[in-house]
């Protein structure tokens, strides 16, 4: 150990016992609220800090109340560095996580939409991975930002969030057919792996994403919010070129790569029913009311379950 050196800390002169356990941080909290509000305020269209504060005062006057100027920068200039960094960082993050949604809306509308989204739903997680967690309900609640491509935009947002979940979501011990053998179907309860998402689509958004990724030569391989951009800049919406086509999709991962698996309607209905808590027997009964299941044979269903078991899709409901 090196010998302790004398420091200029006044703390060394005081007993730690004098520290209040739950010191009210009123001054600190108030200062941080003021600064955070300024930092998180939207930029102007020229990507500058807004010149006018919300109460009509010049922003410079508000900011000068707590930020010191120096010989080169005003208080406004200094806070503007943080204001711009905030928006650039978060927008970059959503650009990288939602390339498909950006393609559906086009750059200009996507930018407007995520700016509105971040104002309505500031990040509530320390992890940037979670930044888009409320994007789907936002698009539902505020259709103006995705009009006239709202349904396609929502489905694309669902697919891109499903990719994030599949990339690093929780994995549980899979159910095996062997362990289920002999259990009456009305007492078999299974769920999907937590990293799996089922989607019922009216647009082939999975094909759109695959086309975009092929064109740009990259799949989601590393961490969400990776440094590299996944899709190069595009200005215009591709939405008018995508025609409605109903489909069912399962988003999963295998050997730590993300995959899309197309399902038919009966497969989707069985998996959805199981994941919602139905027994195996009840899930099969759902097929009886499904016209598209008329030609499904017991052998078909057995082969589906074999494949799902091999891929580890299903877990015991109690796990």
């Amino acid at each position, binding site marked *: *150990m*090196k010998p*302790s*050196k004398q*420091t*200029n*800390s*006044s*703390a060394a002169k005081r007993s*730690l016992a004098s*520290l209040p356990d739950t*010191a009210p*941080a009123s*001054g*600190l*909290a108030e*200062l*941080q*609220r003021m600064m*955070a509000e300024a*930092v*998180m305020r939207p930029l102007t269209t020229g990507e500058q800090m807004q010149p006018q504060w919300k109460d009509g005062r010049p922003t410079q006057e508000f900011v000068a*109340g*707590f*930020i*010191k100027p*120096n010989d*080169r*920068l005003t208080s406004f200039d*200094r*806070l503007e*560095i*943080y204001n711009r960094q*905030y928006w650039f*960082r*978060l927008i970059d993050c959503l650009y990288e996580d939602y390339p498909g949604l950006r393609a559906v809306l086009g750059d200009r509308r996507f930018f407007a939409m995520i700016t509105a989204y971040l104002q309505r739903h*500031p*990040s*509530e997680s*320390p*992890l*940037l*991975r979670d930044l888009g967690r409320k994007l789907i309900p936002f698009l539902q609640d505020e259709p103006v930002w995705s009009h006239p491509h709202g349904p396609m935009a929502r489905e694309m947002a669902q697919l891109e969030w499903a990719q994030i979940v*599949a*990339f*690093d*979501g*929780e*994995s549980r011990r899979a159910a095996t057919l062997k362990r289920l053998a002999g259990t009456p179907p009305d007492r078999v309860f299974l769920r999907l792996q*937590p*990293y799996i998402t089922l989607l019922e689509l009216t647009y082939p958004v999975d094909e759109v994403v695959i086309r975009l990724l092929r064109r740009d030569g990259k799949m989601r*391989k*590393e*961490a969400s919010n*990776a*440094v*590299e951009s996944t899709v190069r800049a595009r200005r215009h919406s591709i939405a008018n070129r995508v025609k409605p086509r109903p489909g069912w999709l399962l988003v999963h*991962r295998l050997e*730590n*790569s993300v995959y899309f698996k197309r399902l038919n309607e009966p497969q989707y209905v069985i998996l959805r029913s199981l994941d919602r808590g139905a027994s195996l027997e009840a899930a099969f009964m759902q097929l009886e009311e499904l016209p598209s299941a008329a030609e499904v044979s017991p052998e078909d269903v057995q082969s589906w379950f074999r494949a799902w078991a091999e891929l580890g899709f299903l877990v015991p409901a109690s796990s």
Partner: protein
Amino acid sequence: MPANPFNGHTDYGIGLGLRVPHYRHILEQKPTCDWFEIISENFMVDAGRPLEVLDKILEQYRVVQHGVAIYFGSAEPLNRDHLRKLKRLVKRTNTPWLSDHLCWGSVDGRYTHDLLPMPYTFEAARVTARKIREARDYLEVPICVENVSSYAEFHVSEMTEWEFLSEVVELADCGILLDVNNIYVSSQNHGFDPFDYVNNVPHHRVGQIHLAGHSKFERYILDTHDHPVLDPVWKLYDRALQLAGHTATLLEWDDRIPSFDEVHHEALKANKFLRSKTLAGQPA
């Protein structure tokens, strides 16, 4: 001596930040590197590729965790869910110490995802120190706090930044991750002598040093981590080693990242300074 309670009594040399563009090279070529620093938040996930990569790295290398989101300086309480995930990762990596920044970044449960500067007040020091102690007690690992680069100062500040850092680490009884590039950047932005900073922190608490590059603009300097280390920063590093002794040193390169070999070559320049301190023996 490099080993101290704040870096888990370890004797680490020169490390590199583990970054995605280098994964393949590291996993396939297994280059020599004394240790890697990971960004904790990139691996605080439930499963999948990030943890697969981490586990492979852990089979071959020593790993130290560096965080960006505890926000010791935020007035609000620590995020318990975040700490729980962090502790799970600490158990996985067996990190000998853990670092995060002396900054704030969240208010009322909303996150800026930035490392915002502290007001240098006694109240802020008490709040911050209490949170560091709480985190250390929960995580059961030594904590070093890193000085951030900053672009703004507050009217309410009652002391210099280095006095504030000293105040916090003494109250919290924790270590310092001394980022000499951040000291240089802030000195240029705020007009102080960076050697005053390095000379006046409690050197026996320095558990680790960060090096990085920065970018000069017309009216300020930004901490961009996208360049080689510049001469003034090497001089500060040299001085820090004179005072703190041989210390675990890490090069950060986070943007426009060149090849692994190029980054490693830049980091190994620190050997010139570390060796001279080893030969000289005791710190000044």
